[in-house]
């Protein structure tokens, strides 16, 4: 029956280590979002270019990123590329894997957002003498980013949670890695993972709230 005795001491004592790990987690998540957003923007421009090869590249990226497990994507970045002689550290492999996933989902967010912007907007820009790129840059893109902003914060939360998959490629400095290592020597599995889960929860919530706050400041219309 249920006769487990909780021992929180070890876990609580390890809190500073866990928080150090949390910083690494946050760092990877933020970097992966920055890279993911930049790549998603490039993928979106590829799609809009009208060039078949470029838009095909975008389609392939989005399809793979959204329809295969994130775990495999990270495996591919570490072990898969390793087969070709490209050896990425666990940190880099994790970052690359998550950024790949982010870019796919964010490109799809952008596509949905673009659908919500009437074509007449770009047309109005063109009729004022703007090039297609200018009309995109100054008229369509700002509106697209606004519409895609809140869905993108979902992806940011997902990126934070995905970092925990790093333990499978030997990542041991992020929150999941640190927790795993401490659990291996203490066997206080429930306590350590419960505490780590609380930290993940708080990071995710903080990011969501910060994004909402930023949104009300940035988008005044």
């Amino acid at each position, binding site marked *: 029956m249920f006769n487990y005795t909780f021992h929180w001491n070890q876990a609580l004592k390890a809190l500073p280590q866990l928080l150090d790990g949390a910083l690494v987690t946050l760092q990877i998540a933020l970097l992966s979002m920055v890279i993911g957003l930049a790549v998603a923007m490039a993928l979106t421009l590829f799609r809009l270019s009208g060039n078949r090869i470029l838009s095909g590249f975008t389609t392939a990226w989005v399809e793979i990123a959204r329809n295969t497990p994130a775990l495999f994507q990270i495996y591919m970045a570490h072990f898969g590329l390793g087969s070709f002689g490209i050896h990425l550290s666990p940190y880099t492999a994790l970052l690359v894997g998550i950024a790949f996933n982010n870019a796919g989902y964010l490109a799809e967010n952008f596509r949905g957002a673009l659908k919500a912007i*009437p074509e*007449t*907007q770009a*047309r*109005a*820009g*063109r*009729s*004022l*003498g*703007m*090039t297609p790129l*200018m009309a995109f840059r*100054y*008229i369509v893109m*700002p*509106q697209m980013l*606004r519409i895609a902003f809140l869905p993108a914060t979902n992806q940011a939360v997902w990126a934070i949670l995905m970092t925990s998959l790093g333990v499978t490629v030997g990542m041991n400095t992020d929150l999941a890695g640190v927790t795993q290592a401490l659990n291996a020597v203490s066997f206080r599995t429930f306590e350590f993972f419960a505490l780590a889960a609380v930290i993940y929860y708080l990071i995710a919530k903080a990011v969501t709230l910060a994004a909402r706050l930023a949104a009300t400041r940035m*988008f*005044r*219309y």
Partner: protein
Amino acid sequence: MIEIENVRKSFGSLEVLKGINLTVQKGEVLTIIGGSGSGKSTLLTCINGLETIDAGRIVVDGTDVHAKATDLNKLRRKLGIVFQQFNAFPHLTVLENVMLAPRKVLGQSKAEAEAMAVKQLTHVGLGDKLKVYPNRMSGGQQQRMAIARALAMSPAYMLFDEVTSALDPQLVGEVLDTLRMLASEGMTMICVTHEMKFAREVSDRVAFFHKGVMAEIAPPETLFGAPKDPELQNFLAATH
């Protein structure tokens, strides 16, 4: 001068312009009337190159609009166009809406573009709305902003494509007043419109389009007073 020579245009199997010939002189106000589907709006979007044409040519101040070598982006600075939908840029304030193209397309300094924008917005009666976002304004105000936005590029010609058709009836007047003002200032204008009273008052000439053909063109007193074309007679009887 805008010269339109034997212009043909089809959408699929539907020919919407069946050989249009028309010349608009500098300083002239031409209005185009006609039923929906008569090709009048299509002609406007062909003039500034937003639409291609299948045959004939359109020449603006000596530049063939649809020639391969023509820099359309440059040509469009000469041709202001205002659409039925206001197309306000929702993420920019009224002032920013008007300043955007002069800044980015003409490369004007911020001060220069702002001075021009304030001047044009004041001209159309929106001097007190500079910092407002378009969604806080009525349709009539948004349409006047669109007119100011086009004027800020200092165009030689203004094309108006049914600019009052999407407005509530009580807002039509303020936009028509703005057009009247521009006409009285000597702006060269082509207005596609359903407002017969307006057409009669401001036009130097009125053209009647029917099924892709310019069926009649004449000064307003002749066109409205003694219409010759039977389709025009029907059209006028139906709209009066």
